[in-house]
């Protein structure tokens, strides 16, 4: 049983296109996240949702729009893709109640390549 799953695993697309990445967790967690890992392997948070409510929104271009239909799902839609969006995008989830000590569980990542 996969705890945090993402689809697709690989995504190759042209500049200017719009694409979505889906994430689902079956851990019963309240909070979900999107992280971006760039070509140098640096990981940075993009968004966090708690029970469908946006709670963290780092300085991310508004071409990126997260959507949480329910607390088990957090999707990431990207409009007008640019070359610099090429990266690995990780979804994660955690319980909210533990605060900053709470473990975040990561999905396998979606490797996005924009041509």
């Amino acid at each position, binding site marked *: 049983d996969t705890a*945090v799953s993402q689809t697709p695993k690989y995504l190759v697309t042209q500049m200017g296109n719009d694409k979505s990445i889906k994430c689902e967790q079956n851990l019963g967690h309240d*909070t979900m*996240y999107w*992280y971006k890992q760039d070509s*140098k*392997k*640096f*990981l*940075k*948070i993009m968004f*966090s949702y*708690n029970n469908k409510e946006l*709670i*963290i929104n780092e300085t991310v271009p508004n071409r990126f729009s997260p959507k949480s239909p329910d607390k088990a799902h957090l999707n990431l839609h990207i409009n007008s893709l640019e070359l610099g969006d090429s990266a690995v995008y*990780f979804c*994660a989830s*955690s319980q*909210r*109640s*533990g*605060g*900053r*000590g*709470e*473990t*975040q*569980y*990561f*999905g*396998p*990542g979606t490797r996005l390549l924009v041509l």
Partner: protein
Amino acid sequence: AQSVTQPDIHITVSEGASLELRCNYSYGATPYLFWYVQSPGQGLQLLLKYFSGDTLVQGIKGFEAEFKRSQSSFNLRKPSVHWSDAAEYFCAVGQGFSGGYNKLIFGAGTRLAVHP
């Protein structure tokens, strides 16, 4: 601002040798610290975490880490490395927000290569 520094970008060790990966943090309050491992083409797996109590923390796969407040460090160690330990290792600090929310601030990672 909170930050995590991993001074070593790349480390190579021989199989069976001991390992220490360095991590230094900058955080105003008591830090909540994590080590994650990323195998090639995979997601991140938690190795261990520290948030209170004993400063020597045991994790999975035979790893341990020691929290040293005076040095602002949380170094990861393993007494005998296996070839399967070759991966990218990330140190992170948990930054909390009101309401019990948190985000992870990651270091740049250390890539570990293991020679047979």
